[in-house]
């Protein structure tokens, strides 16, 4: 379990991370989301001692990263998949990291196999695609057989097959009792395998909750196609339900298909089509973080 307490970081006048506190549970995949400039990367760097916080701390089952005897045995980290010397082979890149952490050399080939890079083990990383680099970076994180994975945008550059592989790998890691803390801008992707979400905006915590809870924030819309739209609209209004008529159909918010169907049936109104649309996690999160977005399209 990871406990982040009151993390704060200021660069000049700008507060990158503002009194951030949250817990990350074991056995679950926790997504870390927020717009560009929300402080995600700074937070993750502070969590592994690369950036010194002005205030606050992060502990892993009670121990801070810098006080661990061998951090690579506890926390596997990928903060930048480009972090590798282009002239060094994948195997030697991992061998150097394994040696530094006193990890047996046999783990190098094991993790290369786990991430599907065994056939490219002796290739220099300068010729790797971004997807291959992501896989190699993840192999580096797995070297120490850690109980926590801390990953910053690990799906960048992966093809659809690679994304599915990553999703399955992280889910399996969490199912085995591991803790996965993963930032991603691919929210739809994250929604498919994350259990919990930490949502930040402008360095502040906006929400720490399950994905299901976040999804429940999204109001559903029931779309009804009927020749008696005006009549049904008036009936719904009488039941305190808002409805907008347009192009021969009604858009009804804040209710369910069952409720609309019952009202229509009770009043002998013929409905030719009725569908319920739930807002996506992406739309909900954009609403949550919209006001705090540092960079947004005009």
């Amino acid at each position, binding site marked *: 379990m990871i406990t982040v307490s009151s993390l704060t970081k200021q660069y000049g006048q700008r507060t990158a991370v503002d009194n951030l506190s949250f817990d990350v549970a074991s056995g679950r995949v926790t997504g870390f989301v927020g717009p560009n400039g929300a402080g995600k990367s700074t937070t993750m760097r502070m969590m592994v*001692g690369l950036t010194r916080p002005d205030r606050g701390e992060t502990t892993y089952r009670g121990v801070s990263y810098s006080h661990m005897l061998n951090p690579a045995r506890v926390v596997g980290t990928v903060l930048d998949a480009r972090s590798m010397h282009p*002239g060094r082979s994948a195997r030697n890149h991992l061998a150097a990291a394994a040696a530094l952490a006193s990890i047996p050399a046999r783990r190098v080939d094991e993790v290369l196999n786990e991430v599907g890079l065994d056939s490219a083990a002796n290739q220099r990383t300068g010729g790797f695609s971004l997807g291959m680099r992501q896989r190699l970076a993840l192999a580096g994180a797995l070297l120490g057989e850690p109980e926590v994975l801390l990953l910053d945008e690990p799906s960048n550059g992966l093809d659809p097959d690679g994304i599915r592989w990553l999703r399955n790998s992280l889910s399996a890691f969490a199912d085995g009792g591991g803790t996965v803390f993963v930032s991603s801008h691919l929210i739809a992707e994250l929604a498919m395998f994350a259990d919990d979400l930490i949502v930040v905006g402008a360095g502040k915590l906006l929400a720490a909750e399950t994905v299901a809870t976040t999804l429940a924030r999204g109001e559903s819309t029931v779309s009804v196609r009927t020749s008696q739209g005006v009549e049904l609209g008036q009936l719904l209004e009488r039941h305190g339900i808002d409805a907008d008529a347009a192009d021969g159909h009604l858009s009804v918010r804040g209710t369910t298909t069952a409720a609309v169907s019952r009202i229509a049936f009770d009043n002998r109104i013929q409905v030719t089509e009725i569908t319920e649309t739930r807002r996506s996690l992406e739309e909900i999160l954009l609403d949550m973080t919209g006001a705090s977005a540092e960079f947004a399209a005009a």
Partner: protein
Amino acid sequence: MTTTTLPTTAIPTDPRPQPLTRQRGDAVAALPAALRSEWIKLRSLRSTPGLLGAVVVIGVLLSWILATFVKTDPDTHLPFTIGETFVFSTWLTMVLAIVMGTLSFASEVQHGTLATAVTTQPARWVIVAAKAVVGSGLGLVMGVLGMAAGFGGAVLGGLEAGDTSGSLATAGWALLLTALAPMLGLGIGMIIRHSAGAVTGVLVWALVIENLVKSFAPASFTRLLPFSAAAGLLGIQTAGDNAETMAAALTRVQDAFVFSGYVALAIGIGTALLYRKEAN
């Protein structure tokens, strides 16, 4: 502003024991692992054998050119001998060793691998110490190869052996210099943190600035400059030397202290910056 952690899933108590914590002495115990890691990094790049090859080629060529085309020392007008020529290329070997030491750190910053190293070994001085030791080892190898090549080039050029009574001592001081040089480079790399900038800075200082300073500053000052001390250790003259600088020259022991002082200063400042700055 105070933020509140919103209600979330119940966090189950983790039955596993706490991660082991670092105790006094653990960082020192991690040094052999860091040395292994640095050795793997060094031997896994093509630039390392390339550097050693360059040292050999420069050693052979310089001695051979002196023997074949220059033939006599311009200052003493005496013919060059093997006993003095074999060490001439060591000054360039030293410059290459400084560049190698510089790149051992600056390229890690450039390629982002420093962050990986620092997250793996939070006791950052361990990484510095490992780089210094491995760099020094390679510096020694470079020194031996350079002098052997210088000897070979002189023999190829047909030089006489000459007075070789001081050659062993000269070789010893030269090896001390090539062992210290990568550490100076490491310190410079840690301070400047930019491969091209650091290497350019070293070359411009060694080949231009120090010689310019010698042209106007008193010898009592210029003998304390790093590359003057290096030349003193090798017992050779450089482009900026003249009668005044030669008269004010330090002893080899003093030169060793001066050069070591620069190494200690660069490593000290660099290590302090490594702890102070963010690891990229």
